[in-house]
């Protein structure tokens, strides 16, 4: 039995007209239309296009929620195994419509959804993380190639064939790093790359440098004598037994503990569960990582106003930048709301 495929195209490829017909309302045709005719050839008898939704680019853009719901209803009724939109090449509104309806179908119906766009189409940045967008030329000159790639990728997704890297499968990557076994070991790849680089020839890095966000430091505390200071650590200090089960590495959470009644972090009550350093001394005296003892002394001596009653803690080894950024935002927000003026952040 062939897989059932539903397609989405705009008014132009649906033969309804150009810009003057951009407000064309979603309509269903129960067979392949326009690019779908060629796409069907690429599918052969493995998949059959059972319907095509035609919708004006202007209509989708201006009534996005309504258009999305109308299209979804029609698609759902056809009980497809896969959904294909476009290709939209470098057409902005069409790209956004293709991306939006693909993302909607993928989420609501849980079926593979494929579209095709030129990498600079604004739809790419909006939807690349959620759907498969095949890389196309900037114009319909690349139609045949685009449809061939979309059909090839679509059939793999339908059959559950394991996918190779995005660059080999021909789609625009979804921002996910995945391990593959390569033909040559790393040392050989490095030497090959170096000789290309020395010879002034082209070489392809295996990871483009990320751009780090620059966080401007907060203004200095004007009146330390009345300031509230909080302790935050990535050194993995937790109450003994690790009640919140913080991970020893690659943290995906942080925890918050009341230290208001304590003068000192003692080894009978606290320990380090950090997986990235020698914990011997931290476990003999957790204050070496979270200096509560010294902070209490300074607090009593009037060096600063008061210590915030909660300690925030996580483990900072192998922890992804994305998670670290989220912890920072959340902890920062809570501290700000609690009126904290300054933070001593201890790392290890």
């Amino acid at each position, binding site marked *: 039995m062939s897989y059932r495929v539903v397609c989405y195209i705009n008014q132009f490829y649906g033969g309804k007209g150009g810009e003057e017909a951009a407000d064309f309302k979603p309509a269903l045709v129960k067979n392949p239309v326009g690019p779908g005719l060629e796409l069907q050839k690429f599918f052969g008898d493995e998949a059959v296009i059972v319907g095509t939704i035609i919708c004006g680019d202007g209509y989708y853009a201006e009534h996005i929620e309504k258009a999305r719901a109308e299209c979804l209803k029609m698609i759902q009724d056809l009980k497809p195994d896969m959904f294909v939109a476009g290709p939209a090449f470098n057409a902005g509104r069409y790209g956004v419509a293709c991306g939006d309806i693909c993302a909607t179908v993928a989420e609501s119906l849980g079926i593979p959804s494929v579209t095709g766009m030129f990498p600079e189409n604004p739809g790419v940045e909006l939807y690349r993380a959620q759907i498969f967008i095949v890389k196309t030329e900037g114009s319909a000159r690349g139609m045949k190639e685009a449809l061939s790639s979309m059909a090839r990728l679509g059939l793999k997704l339908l059959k559950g064939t394991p*996918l*190779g*890297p*995005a*660059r080999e499968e021909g789609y625009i*990557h*979804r*921002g*996910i*790093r*995945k*391990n*593959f*076994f*390569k*033909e*040559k*070991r*790393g*040392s*050989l*790849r*490095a*030497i090959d*790359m*170096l*000789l290309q*680089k*020395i010879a002034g020839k082209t*070489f392809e*890095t*295996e*990871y*483009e*440098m*990320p*751009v*780090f966000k620059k966080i401007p430091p907060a203004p200095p505390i004007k009146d330390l004598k009345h300031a509230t200071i909080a302790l935050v650590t990535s050194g993995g200090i937790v109450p003994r037994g690790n009640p919140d*089960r913080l*991970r*020893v*590495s*690659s943290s*995906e959470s942080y925890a918050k503990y009341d230290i208001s009644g304590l003068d000192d972090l003692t080894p009978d009550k606290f320990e380090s569960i950090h*997986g*990235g*350093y*020698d*914990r*011997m001394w931290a476990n003999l005296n957790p204050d070496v990582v979270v200096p509560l003892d010294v902070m209490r002394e300074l607090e009593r001596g009037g060096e600063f106003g008061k210590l915030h009653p909660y300690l925030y803690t996580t483990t*900072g*080894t*192998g*922890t*992804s*930048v*994305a*998670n670290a950024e989220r912890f920072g935002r959340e902890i920062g927000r809570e501290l700000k709301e609690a009126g904290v003026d300054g933070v001593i952040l201890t790392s290890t």
Partner: protein
Amino acid sequence: MRLELHKVKVRDVRWGDVTKLEDGVLYVDKASAIKEVADEVFAKVDLKLARPGESIRIIPVKDCIEPRVKLSGGRDYFPGFVSPMQRAGSGATLVLDGAAVVTCGSIVAFQEGFIDMSGEGARYTPFSETNNVVLVVEPIEGLDKHKYEAALRIAGLKLATYLAKACMDSKADEVATFEKGTVAEESAKFPDLPKILYVCMSIAQGLLHDTYVYGTDVKSSFPFLLHPNEVLDGAVVSGNCVSACDKNTTYHHVNNPVVCDLYARHGKDVNFLGVVISPESTVLAGKERSASMSAALGVELGADGVVITEEGYGNPDTDLCLTAKYFEQAGIKTVVISDEASGTDGKSQSLADATPEMNAFVSTGNVNEMIVVPPMKEVIGDAGAIALLSGGSAESLREDGSMYVELQSIIGSTVEIGYGRIGCEWV
């Protein structure tokens, strides 16, 4: 300098009355071997065998060592450790190719890793393909962790040397020759070939994160130059209790693939200058020092290009960035090899630091990627140790004995000297 590695293939390992090699089978006299590694700090010493394809998990693993011994040009092995100090890299060395000593014991609990001899996990570690003699020790009560690490490190080296020494009259299946003159001689011989330096960044952070060269801890050392033969002949030893995936075990050092692959092309399309061991420090001044002095060595040697390999992840990413930056600024073309920590979902940026000069990057994989490894019939060591290993968690070990873990808990899975074929791609 000329080094011959006389490689004898080891296809199996079994217990025997006498330690010897016969028809590719390494027989181990257990009692003598245990006696060889005895130390007053060990309450109990045991040996186990693990062969490729067997349903065995070894956990927690500290180091892996290839059994070797000098046939000529020195005595025993690992100069400065278990043989007298002498420059390594000349004469002939017997290699029990296909065998490994695996040291096992919970020193720092979470900074060891595991090896599966079969199943999905076996694909990611080279030590599922070696015939392993596993050293399992229990320390005396109250033993300081640092003394425990030192004793287990030395015991592993002794056992590896003992095994090879007992097989000294074996006939080599293959003799690999590594011969190269001084930098000046080779540069005169190959004036037109690009001069390539290799910088092997090595964790030297103290607190059990240490690399040793000729018996000494390089923590307080400057970057220094070694002849490639010295690296291939036991000068460098791991003393690292750090995340399992990307530490260079002692086995990796003597088989360093960047050294081997540059050597193979020496005189053909490269002029291999040598190896700089560059210590990775915990403090920024130390990182700056190692990076700038490594680049200075490159300048003094007239390097055209450099391969830089990282050890570890996280803060050593800064050492890597600085080193690449200073080499590029000195006009020396740079390629780095590093793994990535892009989160269990692969969606995070992969490094803790970045620099635009690092535009030629070879990836050895995402350490955070999750895999399921099947249950093994036998566990050498402690199955529950996974709860505390980096890359494991309390939930990792399932009731049926299978484990759901990050790749980083497997020894050598993403090692950054490029020993394996794994690498990240965008999907």
